[in-house]
């Protein structure tokens, strides 16, 4: 999808009407392994870009999830608490984490596009 952007922390960001939906990439879920728990931020919280605001736990380990842009959390994916495995099976659709009302939508434009993210992941291999 051309309007999906990516962070170096392996999050994807999709902007619709000033609201950015955020999740983790397929590369990230694959590296984490089977997800068993997710700790999501509170709705209404103001977050800074790069701030650790969620935690995803796999069988193996716990990993931080960062706010890719500044703004206010307006919704979280509460379905993940009962079905955290959705993050593995549908990371870029039903496995979304939270929605941020962007403080500055320009921040999103500065993130990587799909091709740039794919090239970035290749440098990590």
């Amino acid at each position, binding site marked *: 999808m051309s309007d999906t952007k990516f962070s170096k922390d392996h999050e994807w960001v999709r902007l619709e009407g000033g609201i950015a939906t955020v999740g983790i990439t397929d590369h990230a879920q694959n590296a984490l*392994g*089977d997800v068993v*728990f997710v700790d999501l931020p509170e709705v209404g919280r103001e977050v800074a870009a790069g701030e650790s605001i969620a935690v995803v*736990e796999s*069988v193996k380990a*716990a990993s931080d999830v960062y706010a890719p842009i500044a703004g206010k959390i307006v919704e979280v994916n509460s379905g993940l608490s009962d079905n955290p495995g959705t993050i593995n099976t549908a990371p870029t659709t039903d496995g979304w984490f939270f929605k941020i009302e962007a403080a500055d939508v320009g921040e999103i434009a500065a993130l990587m596009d799909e091709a740039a993210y794919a090239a970035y992941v290749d440098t990590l291999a």
Partner: protein
Amino acid sequence: MADSSTETLLETPLASLHRELGGRMVPFAGYMMPVQYPAGILTEHLHTRAAAALFDVSHMGQAELVGEGAAAALERVTPADVQILKPGRQKYGLLTTDDGGILDDFMVANLGDRLFLVVNASRKHVDLPRIESALPAGVTLKPLPDRALIALQGPQAVASIATLAPGIAELAFMGVGSFNIAGVAALVSRSGYTGEDGVEISVPAEQAEGFARALLALPGVQPAGLGARDSLRLEAGLCLYGNDIDETTSAVEAALTWTIGKRRRTEWNFPGAERVREELANGAKRLRVGIKPDGRQPARGHTPIHAPGGAVIGEITSGGFGPSLGGPMAMGYVAREYAADGTALELMVRGKALPAVVAPTPFIPHRYAR
């Protein structure tokens, strides 16, 4: 763990097989080891409890102790009763420090004409010199670096491997014997680190890959990595050296007093006997316990444990999610007055108090062949 990029990592004889099977290789105890295969930790774990899984544990240290009085010699560095061990039998024991800490945990088997030892990969460089230093003339320690060690674990493990060597089905739990399996001279013990029935098999390194392929070709057998090995052993309530036991913890604190032989508790002639004796008489200040966090959130190693609303009373040493348990589980040390099953605790996870309770282990009942 030491920074792996600056040290040379070793490989086991199965390294190329792991890569062929799609194993995700990670540094562990100085070796590149598969943490998982494409099936993933959860699937590998559940498959082990449902059928049979093959684990490469060739990184572990194997050695033989040969000579008249080998058992008595080994007792100079362990509180285990080694002399009582009959031919064809194996037991679990601890190597102790002079201060009563745990130098390592290990397996010892009586092979009739010699003892066979298996020690942790991360500790073999400490254990072997320690054992060596205690030996009288006539008893020699022979490291076996040219042998691989393969575990086949799960309720179908023994039935599967017995199609290649029927005698294996006759071994009792912790029984040991030599078998010819698929043309390979193998030393087999009915034991493991998963809580399931199964075997651990020592084979010559140069034949290990062909041997592993023969086992993987058996019905129901799938490969499993270190990730599943860790979640399986934690569900089974078994200690991991370096996490749950180390040179600071005693056998009494670790709830491993049962590894100290009855005779040894009258002789008190093992390293660190003074501390063990004092703790048995007066009670240890802290004890290793099983812990079940409420809800689904795991608490990992080094998580501080508090009395509810109160002070720090201990620390988690291993923690994660139990795939068969269907929830989080942990073990750790708590002050003795908080060690009774059912005691309420709080685990400080990322600054938030997570309610938990002291729980009996194993979290998943053992299914050994008794």
